[in-house]
């Protein structure tokens, strides 16, 4: 087990290093000068030069790469060009929106998707099965920004149950949850559809397994056999998907964040790219990559929790 963790840690470090190189140098070739962006149309050449020096943009590339890397290792991602505050603080503030949103959406997706999948699997080939699977197909096919817009039109503009967007902060947790509800629904719908489909097909596979028949031969009822034997085995592929979904929800919410003008990580990245605030872009992408790798790792651990074959040395 220790060996495994060590190996994973090394491969994690290598992955992060490669990612950092890719991120840094892709951003190097990005056209557009942050200094010019900040000073606008009438900026004088001296002012531009002065600002570039101030931002440390005139140092050689490798020096800047190295100092970025060294800074990150000590938790210092640099000072945002545009906001003039440490990038890490900007990101931390956004994470307080993005992570709860992603978790909220994932919980919703799970609460909707898993029961639907189980229902469809147990009623295989019935109209209920066909109906739920048809619904999930539509859930996947709806462009989520469009769905989000329709949600706003219905629940904010017409019914006025929720505000149309924005985020009031966590001082009032109730208001914060309200503000995240519509975005979470918009994000969760397609994910719930995917989960339902995976859950269904995975459960159908395990229901066909011999050990489910064995369980019934012991005298378990169909539903006992399903919940005690098939379900847990079926969760394994579902976990993989959920791991992928979490990272997607963390970063992929940009469009939803735009529609609901939420101060999330995705929108920060988007704004930073537009403003050529390379420090922030780099840090956000790096942190997201890191998050994905960590989540993948967590999913591996979760596997081990579910599956004893992975817990001890043998397979």
């Amino acid at each position, binding site marked *: *087990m220790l*060996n495994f963790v*060590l190996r994973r840690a090394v491969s994690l470090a290598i992955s992060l290093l490669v990612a950092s190189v890719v991120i840094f140098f892709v951003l190097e070739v990005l056209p557009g000068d942050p200094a010019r962006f900040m000073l606008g149309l009438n900026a004088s050449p001296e002012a531009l030069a002065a600002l570039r020096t101030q931002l440390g943009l005139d140092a050689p590339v490798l020096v800047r790469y190295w100092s970025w890397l060294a800074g990150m290792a000590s938790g210092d991602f640099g000072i945002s060009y545009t906001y003039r505050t440490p990038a890490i603080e900007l990101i931390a503030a956004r994470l307080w929106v993005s992570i709860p949103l992603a978790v909220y959406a994932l919980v919703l997706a799970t609460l909707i998707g898993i029961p639907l999948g189980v229902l469809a699997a147990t009623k295989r080939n019935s109209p209920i099965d066909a109906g739920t699977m048809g619904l999930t197909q539509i859930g996947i096919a709806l462009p989520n920004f469009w769905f989000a817009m329709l949600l706003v039109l219905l629940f904010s503009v017409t019914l006025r149950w929720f505000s149309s967007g924005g985020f009031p902060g966590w001082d009032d947790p109730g208001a914060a949850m309200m503000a995240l509800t519509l975005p979470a629904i918009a994000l969760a719908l397609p994910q719930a559809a995917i989960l339902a489909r995976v859950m269904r097909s995975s459960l159908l596979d395990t229901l066909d397994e011999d*050990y489910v*028949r*064995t369980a019934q*031969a012991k005298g378990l009822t169909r539903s006992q056999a399903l919940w005690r034997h098939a379900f847990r085995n079926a969760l394994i592929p579902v976990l993989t998907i959920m791991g992928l979904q979490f990272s997607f929800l963390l970063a992929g919410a940009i469009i939803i964040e735009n529609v609901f003008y939420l101060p999330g990580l995705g929108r920060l990245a988007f704004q930073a790219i537009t403003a050529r605030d390379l420090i922030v872009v780099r840090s956000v992408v790096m942190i997201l990559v890191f998050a994905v790798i960590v989540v993948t790792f967590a999913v591996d651990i979760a596997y081990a929790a579910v599956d004893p*074959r992975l817990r001890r040395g043998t397979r």
Partner: protein
Amino acid sequence: MSLLELEKLGLTIDGTRILEDVSLEIGAGKVLGLVGESGSGKSLTALSIMRLLPGGANLTGKIGLDGRDLVAAGEGEMNGLRGQAMGMIFQEPMTALNPLMTIGDQVAETVRVHRGLGRSEARGLAAETLERVGLPGAMISPSRYPHELSGGQRQRVGIAMAIALRPKLLIADEPTTALDVTTQAQILDLLAGLVREEGMALMLITHDLAVVSQMADTIAVLHQGRVVEAGPARRLIDAPESPYTRQLVAASTHVPTRVRGAVGEVLLRVEGATRDYRLRSGLSMGSKTTFRALDGVSLTIGRGESVGLVGESGSGKSTLARAILGLEPLDAGRVEFAGRVVERAGRAARLTLRDMQMVFQDPYGSFDPRHRVGRLVAEPLHLLGDKAPKGAEREALVARVLESVGIEASAADRHIHAFSGGQRQRIAIARALVIEPALIVLDEAVSALDVSIRAQVLDLLAAISQRVAISYLFIAHDLQVVRAITDRVLVMEGGRIVEEGATERVLEDPQQDYTRQLVRAAPKLGG
């Protein structure tokens, strides 16, 4: 009155008739052997009794268990009976257990479902039952997971689950086919003991006549969903009445007629072959444990000689076969074929393969389902490089080879799924023959076949060796088969060759403990 009585049982699945007029009975403390070739309906008979049939199934007739009619019983009633009054052991020990649950809990579950016992009480009973099937908690803890057990041990867990509540009826569906002979013997002993001690009725399903003849009081022969013959075991084996049973018994004891050809110079020489597998298992990746599958194996095969290789599962037979063909690297030792060292890749490898071919165990799996038979059979011609015949010449060659194994030439245009198991294995032999090799390695080439088909294939092999001077390396775990087709036999255990000699001599008068054990474990018809 018998414990279990089937009366004119009929079964259709989605309108297809599977069972018809099946009538059987078993008394308490008796063993009924249900035999028949693959697909004859043995498993579905068992599942009908348990009422665990697939969707679309329609059952008619009567199943009497202790006076109750199971055909008419509701699902709730059945749930009460399953596990309590009747238990079942399934064919595949590898997949019949839930991989995420400890074996103790799986056995305890039977108890908890029916007796409503608390967790610890149920566990106690489970531990007891496990002990009864030869898995004492001191050696095999009930908190182990299925993957931590061997196949035989898993099968015992399956048995423990079935007998935990001492049911009156136990149905065992091919409980030993997935196990090697020695393990098979242990399991059969265990079942026989239970019947004796507990007065349980046992329905033993198998395709192996030798196994039932050892175990059963009465035997029923199933053919295409009908019982063609039933009666006391002895009588049925010794004097079968129906032609089908007669054919079945004949095939089981069939020995191909073959004349020992002259053995020429040494064709294959293996010296000190050693193979270590690096174990990269699950989470403990990186640790450098190795497993020695071959441990200094040396052997020779002469031109025209037929050599058998026996040994229980995992003893390294397949590894050796692959190493001989140059498909597996060796960590030490060497393989020489016709005076040339066998290489693993490149032109040199092709040169030796040119004269060595192989026939595999799975008659279906060893063919790419997407290619036509003509192409499949011609594939080894690749070894001839530019000298390979092309176009019409190639087609003619394929046709000739197919005919030589008794398959019509027109088969070349069809896909492999259009053939029966026996035909497929003959096509596999044709494929091996197409480049006229000097040695054919057959790795469990007949294990997957029904007895009657197996007899045909063995005849074919014998006939070929009569026609051309060809050497066989015949790998099997079935001593019966080895006896029938080989001149000399090698016995493998744990990666070593422990005994070697003329087939008759070794099997009649084994010198080594291990060989003796093997010979003793092998079920014999009428034994």
